[in-house]
């Protein structure tokens, strides 16, 4: 009897475990389905796709001339992301190299913990830092009337995406077999030559994946850019222009758009655009990391 019960319970638990595994897939499709469902009505009926992607006019609440053009928002997301990456990639990879190749084990553990804590700071706190500290610093340094600009958002996003670049980059460097290092050092290479000539080529895909994951984080970040970039719809021409991103637009306007109105549905369509962008970026990063694993195996 007891044996029968045990077997029955084991069977139940295994079924449960299987269901949970499958649920992961369901959630991804669920996310796409529900975001798509809310936006679909207007996407197929009424939305002018050409205007949507190629117009800079975003007047969702205008009485007479309602316009849904996201070009300026795309430009905002793009410019903030590029600026953040220009700042974060050299620092992130530099720190990854330092942590993985140049410092002793004790310092390495300490630095890794600090980086991990850095990654944990909530985005709304970053946004608050941008709104207060960065804002006043930029006003003072550049003598501008307002510091909530592309530069501010880029700096904040750079600080936010550096930890992920460091930790994934460090993993990629660590994944290079030690025999490579020993061979290079035995030939009389210095550590820098080792990094530059051996590790960079060997860990290229992993480092690129680290950068891509940083990009994914920067594109998807919401609260920090909402608070730090000044929130004005336009294509930026200088670092000191305020911009607005796709994510910030959704966060700022979703609360006010009446449910199922055109405006509301367009915000969901922007969500689909964001989902698609980050999906492609993450997929590429994942394939690169996987490529490394396979080669090692």
């Amino acid at each position, binding site marked *: 009897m007891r044996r029968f019960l045990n077997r029955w319970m084991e069977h139940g638990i295994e079924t449960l475990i299987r269901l949970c*595994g499958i649920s992961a897939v369901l959630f991804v499709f669920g996310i796409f389905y529900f975001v798509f469902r809310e936006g679909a009505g207007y996407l197929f009926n009424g939305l002018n796709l050409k205007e949507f992607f190629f117009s800079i006019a975003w007047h969702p609440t205008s009485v007479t001339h309602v316009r849904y053009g996201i070009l300026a928002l795309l430009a905002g997301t793009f410019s903030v992301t590029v600026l953040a990456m220009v700042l974060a990639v050299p620092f992130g990879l530099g720190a990854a190299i330092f942590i993985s190749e140049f410092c002793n084990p004790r310092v390495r553990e300490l630095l890794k913990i*600090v980086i991990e804590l850095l990654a*944990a700071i909530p*985005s709304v706190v970053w946004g608050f830092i941008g709104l*207060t500290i960065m804002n006043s610093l930029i006003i003072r340094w550049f003598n501008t009337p307002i510091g909530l600009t592309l530069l501010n958002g880029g700096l904040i996003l750079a600080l936010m995406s550096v930890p992920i670049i460091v930790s994934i980059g460090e993993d990629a460097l660590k994944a290079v077999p030690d025999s490579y290092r020993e061979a290079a050092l035995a030939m009389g290479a210095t550590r820098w030559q080792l990094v530059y000539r051996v590790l960079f080529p060997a860990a290229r895909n992993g480092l690129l994946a680290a950068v891509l994951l940083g990009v994914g984080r920067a594109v*998807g970040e919401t*609260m920090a850019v909402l608070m730090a970039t000044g929130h004005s719809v336009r294509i930026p021409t200088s670092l000191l222009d305020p911009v607005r991103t796709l994510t910030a637009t959704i966060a700022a306007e979703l609360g006010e758009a009446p449910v199922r109105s055109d405006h509301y549905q367009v915000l969901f369509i922007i969500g689909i655009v964001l989902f698609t962008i980050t999906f492609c970026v993450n997929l590429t990063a994942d394939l690169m990391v996987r490529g490394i694993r396979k080669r090692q195996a």
Partner: protein
Amino acid sequence: MFEITAHVRKKQRVEQGVKFLFLGMTLLMILPLLLIVGHLVYKAWPVLSMDFLLTNPIRGMRAGGIWAPLLGTLYLVIISLAVSAPVGVMAAIYLNEYAQDNGFTRVVNLAVVNLAGVPSIVHALFGLGAFVLFAGMGRSILAAALTLAVMTLPVIIASTKEALSAVPRSFREACWNVGASRWQTIRHIVLPNSISGILTGVILQVSRAAGETAPVMFTGAVFYKAIKEGDLFAYGLMDQCMALSMHLFTIATQVPGVPESLPYATAVVLLGVVLTVNATAIGLRVWLRSRKKW
């Protein structure tokens, strides 16, 4: 004797230079942050006290404390983790212990990776569409917590999988050889040996759930709601609540005339909660790793 040639000397100089450059880059990343945190605490100092934590915001959030948002965040975190931790851990067990390496498993793994990369604002849209509207929960603690659960799930799966795969295969084989079934092996060998890694992963998601703003903003958190002070059960499952992260956003940007120290203090409390939780997880990991027997 060997003599250091000019070439070697140059090589060593470059090496030193590069080392200091990278050291500088690392420090440039960390030092500003310490300064920033120091500045936040300095600005927040005048209002930080037990009273600040235990009283509701008053006078249109221009005075008083953060009791209602603090408790709201606690509710959201506990409920979301109560859902995502068991589901995530079991999904990871499935992927690591049961699944064969076939097309389906690859799809699941890919789904997990991509789920982890979905921006938080898209999770907010999902939560609004699926839980608030489709499932008819309305804007409630339950809907917001479930949205957070979906957001934390993939990371819990990933960290648990890593912890499980760190248990040597020989442990499992030894157990199978004495006649244990798959589940018995998992229950008595694999889980006890990987529980530290699993726990750390889950704890890290506590702080992530506490810090996220966008997903709760449209699914359950409200600008203002007064609750009974000192009552831990002041919110119901279908109530709307305040959340610490959203409260910071609100008083920093939406309400004019808030005294400067209030948002600073809220930011410091939020930061303090998140960093304490994470430091605990890291401490736990270091401690358990030092006791590891293999």
